[in-house]
């Protein structure tokens, strides 16, 4: 029995969930209708993922009811939730890359004859299943021979065929390019027409407006409101999410006041790496903040990995203060006075099991070499100093960094590099996934540092943020630097335009120098 269009399919009443020290969900209600795409929004830590985990049984709720199709349910785990009718697709495709597409679709329910799997029947069933989504693939090939977008659709096909009434999409577009997002949204629309209820979680507000019918906003574990998308504009939505008039605080164009006539501190000439980023020129002045804008997968992270020696360049030269510089490894970069706080803090930034003190001292120690240890006293001084200056919230300096919150981990990383007193600091998405307070502090820090003469290069998906602190903004698209905006020419609109402009056409603002 499928409920008709517009009827409530899934409803949660007064959900609560506490973790030690925080109330992650505080009496939250949530309704999902059949045949709608319902966006779930909120800053990090607002309770989105806790809500999803409660609905899918990944964690047990402390209180409240969940009703699906008029029946009260209590999913034990994700598998049980799936059997009940709630399927989930995550950002990191949760299928097996080493199995074929057909095996992935049919795992656990392969057609069998005399106890043996009939591969022929399995493959043809898989083909039929994908045909409903307009996909015609060789299902006998391994899943990892297809793009992430295709993998995502295969994951959706599997989830829908298993559960069939509710589909939760958790950041499904984070690693897709424009065309792939369009393809995915076509699939989502098709499912909506079939009467599925779809929960859509995304950081990309454009996409939320494009695909959703209704929006539920959470903040600090509480329900802020439910709105029809038709009756909502961006500013209202951001205000709901942040609970304040953020727009007023931001400047509307970039900063000026850098003297470009002097010899730049750093000059990258024709540096590039095949398959990662086309050769680019970039000169960076003392005290300058360069913002890098571009969609995920555009080549922005590849740009900074190249600049830090983390990925070898196969063309171009680098010079510092007029002298040639060899950047073959991160060690060279660190020795030259570079610092790099990567996008993925957990896997590439923090040393989770080690304490705050050692994490802060690490880069300095790596630079002085193993023969000359940074004394314990000096390490303690550094840690104390930065815990105070950056307001790192930790019970003590020996606490493993993995146990701190995202914002504090980011501050520890910042402290690690500041301890080396760098000339040039690269920050890749420094404000992603951290709470509003820490966010503001990090932005203030960036401004302070460049005033002190440090050169910075900051990647961010938050355009307002880039506009606020950048002297120049480099726009990256299709693995190439396509535009450079300067000073007054930097506005959110001009950046968006540069990102969106078709290949070959000149962007508004200043073309790449």
């Amino acid at each position, binding site marked *: 029995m499928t409920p008709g269009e517009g009827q409530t399919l899934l409803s949660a009443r007064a959900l609560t969930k506490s973790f030690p020290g925080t109330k992650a969900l505080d009496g939250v209600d949530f309704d999902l209708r059949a045949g709608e795409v319902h966006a779930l929004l909120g800053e990090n830590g607002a309770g989105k993922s806790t809500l999803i985990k409660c609905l899918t049984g990944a964690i047990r709720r402390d209180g409240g009811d969940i009703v699906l199709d008029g029946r009260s349910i209590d999913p034990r785990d994700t598998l049980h939730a*799936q059997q009940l009718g709630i399927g989930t697709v995550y950002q990191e495709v949760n299928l097996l890359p080493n199995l074929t597409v057909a*095996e992935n679709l049919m*795992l*656990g329910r392969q057609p069998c004859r005399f*106890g043996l799997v009939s*591969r022929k029947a399995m493959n043809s069933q898989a083909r039929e299943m994908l045909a409903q989504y307009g996909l015609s693939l060789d299902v006998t090939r391994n899943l990892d021979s297809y793009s992430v977008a295709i993998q995502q659709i295969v994951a959706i096909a599997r989830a829908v065929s298993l559960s069939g009434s509710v589909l939760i999409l958790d950041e499904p577009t984070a690693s897709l390019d424009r065309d792939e997002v369009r393809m995915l949204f076509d699939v989502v629309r098709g499912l909506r027409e079939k009467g599925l209820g779809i929960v859509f979680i995304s950081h990309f507000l454009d996409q939320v407006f494009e695909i959703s019918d209704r929006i539920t906003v959470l903040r600090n574990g509480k329900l802020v409101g439910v709105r029809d998308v038709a009756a909502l504009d961006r500013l209202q939505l951001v205000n709901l999410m942040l609970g304040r008039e953020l727009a007023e605080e931001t400047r509307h164009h970039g900063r000026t006041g850098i003297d470009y006539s002097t010899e730049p501190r750093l000059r990258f000439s024709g540096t590039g790496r095949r398959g990662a980023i086309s050769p680019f020129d970039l000169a960076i002045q003392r005290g300058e903040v360069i913002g890098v804008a571009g969609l995920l997968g555009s080549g922005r992270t590849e740009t900074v990995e190249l600049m830090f020696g983390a990925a070898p360049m196969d063309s171009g030269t680098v010079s510092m203060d007029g002298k040639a510089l060899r950047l073959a490894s991160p060690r060279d970069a660190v020795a030259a006075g570079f610092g790099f706080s990567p996008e993925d803090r957990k896997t590439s930034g923090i040393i989770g099991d080690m304490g705050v003190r050692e994490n802060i001292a690490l880069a300095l120690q790596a630079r002085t070499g193993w023969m000359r240890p940074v004394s314990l006293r000096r390490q303690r001084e550094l840690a104390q100093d930065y815990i105070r200056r950056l307001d790192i919230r930790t019970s003590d300096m020996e606490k493993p960094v993995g146990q701190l919150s995202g914002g504090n981990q980011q501050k520890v990383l910042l402290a690690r590099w500041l301890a080396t007193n760098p000339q040039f600091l690269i920050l890749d998405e420094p404000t992603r996934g951290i709470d509003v307070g820490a966010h503001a502090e990090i932005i203030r820090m960036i401004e302070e540092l460049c005033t002190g003469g440090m050169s910075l290069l900051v990647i961010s998906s938050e355009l307002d943020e880039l506009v606020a602190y950048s002297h120049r903004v480099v726009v990256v698209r299709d693995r190439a630097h396509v535009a450079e905006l300067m000073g007054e020419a930097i506005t959110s609109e001009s950046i968006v335009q540069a990102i969106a402009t078709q290949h070959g056409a000149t962007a508004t603002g200043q073309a790449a120098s």
Partner: protein
Amino acid sequence: MNARLLPFFATVLIFILAYAVCYMQFPAMLSTRVAGNLLTDNAFLGIVAVGMTFVILSGGIDLSVGSVIAFSGVFIAVVLRDTGLHPLVVFVLLLAITTLFGAAMGLIIHVLQMPPFIVTLAGMFLARGMAYVLSVDSVPIAHPFYEWAQNAYWLMPGKGRLTLIGAMMLVVVLAGVVLAHRTRFGANVFALGGGVQTARLMGVPIARTTILIYALSGFLAGLSGIVFSFYTSAGYSLATVGVELDAIAAVVIGGTLLSGGSGFVAGTLVGVLIMGLIQTYITFDGTLSSWWTKIVIGALLLGFIMLQKLLVGLTGRRMRAPGAH
């Protein structure tokens, strides 16, 4: 063509080339007689390597199998010596013990979430220790059934003998192929090797599959022990030291990824035969010493590990290209 088939084809190619080289030097090697001996001499290794293939496909490792084979031999010999039980009854008892033993290791790996390497290390100590406890000396086996089994063979054209134990290995390999590639259990084994967390989310019964995999490995190690006792007519607690390494080597040379998730049971058979061929060649040559076997196997291991590294690197790059990071 699927790149994952490449190691398998490489294995087959190496086997054919190696056989061709052997044939050119010693034309006598291309006979059903040598082929029959190859199967007979490597029967116990082939059987245990099939079990190891499943373990490695699932991303695990089983270090206990060499000790379990030794234990099996001693157990059979001691029970036959001290009781009037028929060997077939003893075999059933033994297989029950080794299967349960493997299942217990699987259970511990799953429940304690510890690396299979260290858990099966304990199993290795335990099985070898129990073999010692049963008997320190080599215990001969003399039973009419054994005489019958040792002389049971099918005369192939060319006077080669396909012995009972050689045939048993072929049957086990065949059963292994079907189990790995044509059953839900087999798909679950591959799924485990692809990623335990993901497999769990996709509804693969992790506990059951893990336990079954190690139980299967234990069962086949027991069966291999029976075959080995046919082969040697004795049970000796110091026998088959390091066979787990040979089995792992055969699996890898057979084209299975040591980190799990990709491979072929049939390849393992070829891997075993390549290793057997090296030994046969050395025997034919007469001047080469036996230690060259180990060195050549080491070199083959290195070659295959490099090849796999290369292939994984290639697919890995393709994965990353459209991806986010």
